[in-house]
């Protein structure tokens, strides 16, 4: 597995790199956003770790958005700048799958990397049939999602979230269960993850994100996927 680490602080970058190499990861290190983006295209890493505040014209959020324009590669933010929940949400909205706050222990860092990679891999091994009602078409096997006939782009975490909800369609999935199944049991207390991702998902698949019909909120409990009456024939 190849990990790209972009951080302007050499001492951090190097320490993280050394730790990952000891855990048998292949590691690419970069000192600024532009370098990092170049390295992403050149090295095709399996996962990207981004610092947010970096010198030069490109910060971590921008790098993340640029990566999302072309790939579903899992992205992990590692920032010292997390004053409010809004900072974290901003990071997740930029397309990150994970937002870690410095300082973090190396063992935990490695565990999170592994969990994120596991999430992506599990998503690929799903064998369900998928879902199609004419408006929303989810192909679990090929990891493709179509809305009103157009293919839309989902991040691995978004896709995984949608898959878990679909699997439990008609049933409420409690927040903690959702966190455990989508992100892994390490994330069980990070309650804002589902909130951010659900709203992201709604924007992408719901006809009207403000009045969702597919993904419904069960207040203070969790979320529920509701299948709709098919409206064929509008097939890809």
């Amino acid at each position, binding site marked *: 597995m190849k990990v790209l680490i972009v951080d302007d602080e050499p001492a*951090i970058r190097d320490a993280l790199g050394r730790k990952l190499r000891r855990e048998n990861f292949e590691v690419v290190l970069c000192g600024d956003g532009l370098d990092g983006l170049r390295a992403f295209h050149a090295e095709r890493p399996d996962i990207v770790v981004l610092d947010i505040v970096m010198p030069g014209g490109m910060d971590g959020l921008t790098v993340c958005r640029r990566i999302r324009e072309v790939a579903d590669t899992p992205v992990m933010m590692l920032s*010292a*700048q997390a*004053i409010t929940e809004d900072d974290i949400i901003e990071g997740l909205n930029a397309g990150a799958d994970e937002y870690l706050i410095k*300082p973090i222990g190396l*063992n935990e860092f490695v565990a999170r990397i592994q969990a994120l990679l596991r999430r992506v891999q599990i998503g690929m091994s799903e064998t369900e049939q998928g879902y199609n009602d004419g408006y929303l078409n989810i192909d679990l096997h090929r990891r493709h999602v179509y809305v009103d006939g157009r293919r839309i782009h989902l991040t691995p975490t978004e896709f995984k979230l949608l898959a878990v909800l679909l699997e439990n369609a008609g049933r409420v999935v409690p927040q903690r269960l959702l966190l455990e199944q989508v992100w892994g049991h390490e994330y069980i207390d990070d309650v804002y993850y589902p909130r951010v991702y659900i709203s992201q998902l709604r924007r992408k698949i719901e006809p009207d994100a403000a009045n969702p019909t597919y993904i419904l909120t069960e207040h203070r409990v969790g979320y529920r996927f509701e299948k709709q009456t098919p409206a064929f024939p509008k097939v890809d």
Partner: protein
Amino acid sequence: MSFSNSITLMFNGLILAIAFSFLLIALWQDARKTLNQFFAVFLLMVMVWNIGSLMAQVFVLLAAPVSSISLVVGIIDLGFTGSAIAIYMLTASLVGLSARHFRPLAFSALGLMVVYQAVLLLRGAPIAYDVSESGAFVYQPQALSVLFYLLFGSTTFFLTWRYRRKIRSKGLVVGIMLFVIGQTIGLLNAELRIVSLSVNLSSLAASIISFAILRKEIITPLSERVAQIEAMHRVSLAITSQIALDTVLNQIAVQAVGWLDADGSAIFLTTPEGLRLATVYNLPRQFIGLQTRSDRSLAGQVANTNQSVYVENYRRDWNGEHDLPLARETFGSVICVPLVYGSAVIGVLMVISGQQGRLFNRDDVHLLELLGGQAAVAIAHSQLFAEQEALTTEVETARSQLETVLASTENPVIAVDRRLRLLMANPSAKQLFGIPDDASGKALSDLIPANALPSDFREALRNLRRSRTHIYEIQVDSRVYLCHLARLGGPRTTGWVAVLNDITQLKELDRLKSEMVRMTSHDLKNPLQAAMANLELLRDDLREKVTQEAEESIAAVAKQLERMNRIINGTLDLERIRTGAIRSDVCRAVDIVESAVDELRQMAAEGQVSLNYSVTDDNLEFLGDSEQIKRALVNLVENGIKFTAPGGSVHVSVEPGVNSVIMMVRDTGIGIPPELQSRIFERFFRGQQAGTEHISGSGLGLSLVKAVAENHGGSVWLESQPGIGSTFYLSLPTLIKRPPAAAKHAAIETLSNPV
């Protein structure tokens, strides 16, 4: 028949006619009056005497038989003695000398005398009379008549002389004396031939007395009444024209003296300290202002008892303390009446007659009481008027002071009435909003921009009602103001006043501070991450190759780095809670407590501290930021666990309070000494207590709890006993929206306590 006899006859007849007519007038005027009754008896007796004399003359001329003469002499005797008694009764009545049952006694004396005469006649007692050569009837009164006369006549003479001042009528004094003298002449030796002179003189005196009584009883009272009405009119004028108190008092003093024909007067006014001499008339002016505390002075007694007092002779009759210096030496007759307004005695009016002056009587007291009533009204009105003027002046002064203060302050101040029309705007406010000078009474919405008004009127009114103030922020011309609203008026709201504070600079400072806290924390976190990561690598590298001591050193470094991390996180958390927006979730108390306790079970287990909770009402809900409240509760519980020795316990409970939810965290820890209790909510404060050296912490946990409490409009406090344990209380309002002002308060407080 001589010429003189015919003159005497004519004169007697004339006098009788006049006297009789006067009698009729007096009785017609008031027959029940004692004086009139005595006067009638007197005239009757004089008539009897006169008729006797007349008949005697006639009988002598006609050479009537002796028995007829005897009858006539009896009549003369009756008339003579009777009139002596009657004149005494009249005089006694005039000078006010009256014993109990005086009237029946006097009348029975008269009756006794009549009976005696009748008995004499019936028994045919010898009568001493003679007829002179000229045919005049000469009569020598009986010894008993002389005795009667001497008794009554001389007493009458004495009384008249003694009380001549009191009688107040020269005619009466002269008439009575003349009458007594006339009777005396009749007692002289018959040989002097002056009996007819006696009768004539007495008749004349009787007519003088008649006239004087008529004058005294009818003419004078009539003219006095006119004078009284005039005096009353003058007093009323003084009242209605509402002139100054001094003038009113002076007027009353003058009127009282003129009215009662007195020599001087004084008015005392009631003050909290006693009676104060307010004005005098015809008395030394330097007495004004004298204070009498004593109830034993005449004025004091009158004020106390609310009863008029008449003292005929001050030196002789008044035994109390004297009212004024030299009063005993100079005062004669004195009348003192209370001045009553409503039910309170507001003063005392004293009218004084000099020792040689007039003697007052009961009628004068009634007159003065009449005047006193008017005077009291006049004085009370003047006092009210003066008080009102003083009040007006005071209000005016206060108003101008307030205006000066408002004009000189840089804070814009605006007052509006209940219908939001402008009452007042100070110069700063006028300048800020461009309010014209003549804007008073115009609608506030036309004068200031809409964003300067509270965004939620109902909430503003609710806050004003509950906490008497509403605070909100407004922005005018790129400056930020904190606007304090307060109610105007007493129990009923008459309007509102807004005071604006320019907090632009404070806000900017606050922003800079937050920025700095963020920057610093961020800049500290990167080196910290590098150090921690590398230390971990170093530990891995040196595994099993390192000495026990080196391992301990590495652990110490790790621990310190961890501590630094906590401080930074604590600072950021606090900053976030103090400045960040707070959410308004429906919080279920039991959920918050459960999740806080869950989060710390591990820590409690490690410290061998038993951690449990109880919630009385599972459905207890309130509005608040659930995340913040949970953080606060976690901090309290964490604190409790940290300071509790193994084997101890920490108990969390929630109870509903009055419009609030109270969360309690009770531990069996080391406790907090009283001198530290007030400081432990301060930032970075860590009590230097024995036995706590090993306990790590950022010193920010409790100040975060306090910030959360303030953000929610709640409070936090504790009870603690060293060695026994502590209980922390976090009280949060239920189902009440957080006052938005609280966040701003917190922001400003942050500025005054820089990190």
